[in-house]
């Protein structure tokens, strides 16, 4: 039950080796797709039980996401390096990054024989966006014009939970979507977004057949789909079987005889099954095997950076972290973390010290943002800054810095290590505030200044689509105050920088501008970058061509297995 944003991910290896790995992997997949060397074996994959119906816009967790990706095809897909390629789309074009003309290829079919049309996209997006339908991916349609009218105005109770609607939605469809013909539609956004085409590979943007609207509840159990595979059976909490879609003729043609997703509740168990030859692909190496898995699995061990990023958020509502003295304290706290040592000793080198607010697997990442010196460990400078801040704005003698985290995952060890660093290097009191489950932390955090969180808290983020924007906008923009900007960071300068980047005319230009925006973050430090996560996975000797994508998910269609 892992919501996509909740990080349970664990370690990996050096950056350089993984780049080599993905580079040669990319070449392989190209050859496979054109060749006819398809194998016939059925590949078994460890997974959890999907928490939602098997519909793109209803799925927001990795377990279901992996299955949905195999069942549906969208406008574009991502290769292993996160590069975007057209799948159903013929072209996605815009002159101003705001009005997008999308044409789709002819000849695509749903598994019930009906053709895939432009209306299938528009209807699916409208359905997902419309508030009362309760789609978990509704937020992804926020950039499209007319989104607010499909949401209505909610009422909140004193705890900050939605208690009712003050105003019902005034529109059932997004005014920014228009079907031009069977193969063409236009999308008008509320403002220019240069990375809009990159987003379209995310599962929320997948189309749905007309059959969906007959019975939306039952559809997710036995969906009609257009992807490389079709669903054969779904035995809940136990096994999901997919078979290749004979009608599929796109770039992700299945190279194996089918996929069996086996539900495991314990990672140690799936690891044992992998070693015993009962399982082909293991998505997560358990913590207990982290130091031995490369030896245990040999060629089958996979370790590469992932799109997940961890930070410590410094909430804006804490008076001691406001103003000039506050900034000095933020810098001191960042410099007093020995990232190298913690990633080595606590995570056995399976996490990578962070030097920015995004992730190395994303196109445009440089790791060389001016101002990122604060991510280098420097105890002396940290102590100096902290003392300077105390002269400007003294703290009470009994001051205790707290770091809040959920303790049901592996966070306790590193939080204590960070705290010990503060105690030793800054000579302050530091304590961990533990919450038993993740939703309790969420609850307290969302209350903002009124909540119990009166210190730093842990933030984990992984991207839904491979774009720098996906790290910066949702976490630090004013628009995200109602969303995931939990530290309540507000900066006109940063918002303006994001807006400029969104209006860039090319991807390279946009990336450059997004990195400029990061400089502002380093100036204000709304969060302290900690480290990047890695994908640590494995496969058995029975399968070949196993590659994990930028999103830590295996590219299952290209895996081969002989019978």
């Amino acid at each position: 039950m892992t919501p996509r944003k909740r990080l349970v991910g664990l370690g990996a290896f050096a950056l350089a080796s993984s780049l080599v790995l993905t580079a040669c992997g990319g070449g392989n997949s190209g050859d496979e797709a054109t060749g006819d060397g398809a194998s016939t074996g059925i590949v078994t994959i460890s997974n959890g039980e999907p928490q939602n119906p098997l519909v793109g816009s209803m799925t927001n967790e990795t377990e279901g996401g992996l299955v949905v990706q195999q069942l549906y095809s969208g406008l574009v897909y991502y290769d292993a390096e996160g590069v975007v390629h057209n799948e159903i789309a013929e072209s996605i074009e815009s002159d101003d990054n705001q009005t997008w003309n999308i044409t789709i290829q002819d000849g695509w079919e749903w598994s019930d024989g009906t053709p895939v049309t432009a209306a299938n996209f528009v209807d699916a997006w409208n359905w997902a966006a419309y508030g009362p339908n309760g789609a978990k991916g509704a937020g992804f349609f926020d950039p499209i014009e007319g989104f607010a009218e499909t949401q209505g105005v909610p009422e909140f109770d004193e705890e900050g939970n939605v208690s009712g609607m003050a105003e019902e939605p005034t529109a059932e469809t997004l005014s920014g979507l228009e079907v031009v013909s069977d193969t063409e539609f236009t999308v008008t956004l509320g403002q220019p977004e240069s990375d809009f085409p990159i987003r379209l590979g995310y599962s929320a943007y997948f189309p749905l057949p007309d059959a969906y609207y007959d019975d939306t509840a039952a559809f997710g159990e036995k969906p009609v789909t257009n992807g490389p595979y079709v669903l054969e059976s779904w035995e809940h909490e136990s096994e999901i079987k997919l078979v290749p879609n004979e009608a599929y003729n796109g770039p992700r043609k299945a190279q194996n005889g089918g996929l069996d997703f086996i539900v495991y509740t314990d990672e140690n168990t799936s690891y044992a099954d992998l070693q015993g030859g009962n399982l082909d692909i293991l998505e997560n190496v358990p913590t207990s095997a982290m130091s031995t898995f490369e030896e245990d699995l040999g060629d089958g061990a996979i370790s590469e950076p992932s799109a997940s990023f961890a930070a410590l958020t410094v909430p804006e509502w804490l008076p001691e972290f406001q103003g000039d003295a506050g900034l000095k304290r933020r810098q001191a706290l960042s410099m007093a973390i020995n990232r190298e040592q913690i990633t080595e000793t606590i995570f056995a080198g399976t996490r990578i010290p962070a030097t920015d607010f995004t992730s190395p697997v994303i196109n445009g990442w440089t790791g060389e943002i001016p101002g990122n010196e604060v991510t280098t460990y420097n105890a002396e400078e940290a102590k100096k800054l902290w003392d300077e801040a105390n002269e400007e704005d003294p703290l009470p003698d009994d001051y205790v810095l707290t770091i809040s985290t959920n303790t049901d995952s592996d966070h306790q060890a590193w939080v204590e290590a960070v705290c010990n660093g503060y105690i030793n290097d800054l000579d302050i009191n530091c304590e961990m505030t533990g919450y038993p489950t993740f939703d309790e932390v969420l609850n307290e955090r969302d209350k903002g200044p009124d909540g119990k969180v009166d210190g730093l808290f842990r933030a984990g983020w992984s991207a839904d689509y491979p774009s720098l924007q996906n790290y910066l906008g949702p976490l630090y923009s004013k628009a995200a105050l109602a969303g995931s900007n939990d530290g309540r960071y507000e900066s006109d300068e940063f918002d303006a920088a994001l807006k400029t980047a969104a209006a860039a005319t090319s991807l390279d230009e946009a990336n450059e501008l997004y990195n400029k925006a990061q400089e502002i973050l380093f100036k204000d430090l709304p969060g302290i970058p900690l480290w990047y996560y890695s994908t640590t996975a494995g496969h058995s000797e029975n399968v070949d061509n196993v590659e994990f994508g930028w999103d830590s998910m295996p590219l299952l269609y290209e895996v081969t297995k002989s019978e």
Partner: protein
Amino acid sequence: MLWYIGRRLLQVIPVFLGATLLLYGLVFLRPGDPVAALGGERGLSPAAELAIREAYHLDQPFLMQYLYFLKGVFTFDMGVTFTGRPVVEVIAQAFPVTFQLALMAIVIETVFGIGFGLWAGVRKGKLFDSTVLLWSLVLISVPTFVIGFVMQAVVGVQLGWLPITAGRDPDFISLLMPAIVLATTSFAYILRLTRTSVVENITADFVRTARAKGLPRDKVMSRHVLRNSLIPVVTFIGIDLGNLMAGSIVTEGIFNINGVGGTLYQAIIRGENVTVVSLATVLVIVYIFANLLVDVFYAVLDPRIRYA
């Protein structure tokens, strides 16, 4: 006897109401917001959040939610889980396999526990007795998950004698290792209970009398010693059936068995009140029936016990 059983069955009603209300209250009091957790870090749109709250009656006060649950129980429609599966279906799927596992464990622990216990009791103080006592102490002190992982790694992965995991539609063979693991602790307890009882009874007056009458040793053992020694053991086994069904979370996790323990654990983590309380209710009923069975068994074992 029938009147007695009927009266005991009637007790199920207040126990059911009390237990479900208590359980529902406990899950309700669990801190955190399950709907917020569904959205992860990104969060749900307010309209979507509201739609989900309404669908699961989470916008209603506690008592209303409980009444909805009761209505569901009596109409056999307890609603759906957060994943959209009917709760009734979840129960129907989780219980048979757990029941099979618990039954296998009970048989294993009873047969071996009583057998070893009897032998050790008869040969009190000899080598077999002290060895068995020592080993049973080891089994009690080592946590189940250690035994589980070690057996899985040695018997399953290295030797390949038994399946590593039970998987879907587990058969007798694939449940054998989990059942042995599940049975270990209780086996040690039964062994010790039986041994102590046997040691006590073997010197009792009625045994001496039976021997003095010239009854063959076998008869003395089976009709007098064993039968009288079994009363505490039967009590233990009765309670253990309930424990094994609810407490197999660890074992089910290790061997990937899709049963009550794992389902219950996941539901608690997700804050799915209805699923938690429904599963727990079935467990409560299992407990009640197991205890009833134990009481009836007393009468069979000891003719002095009579129920009017």
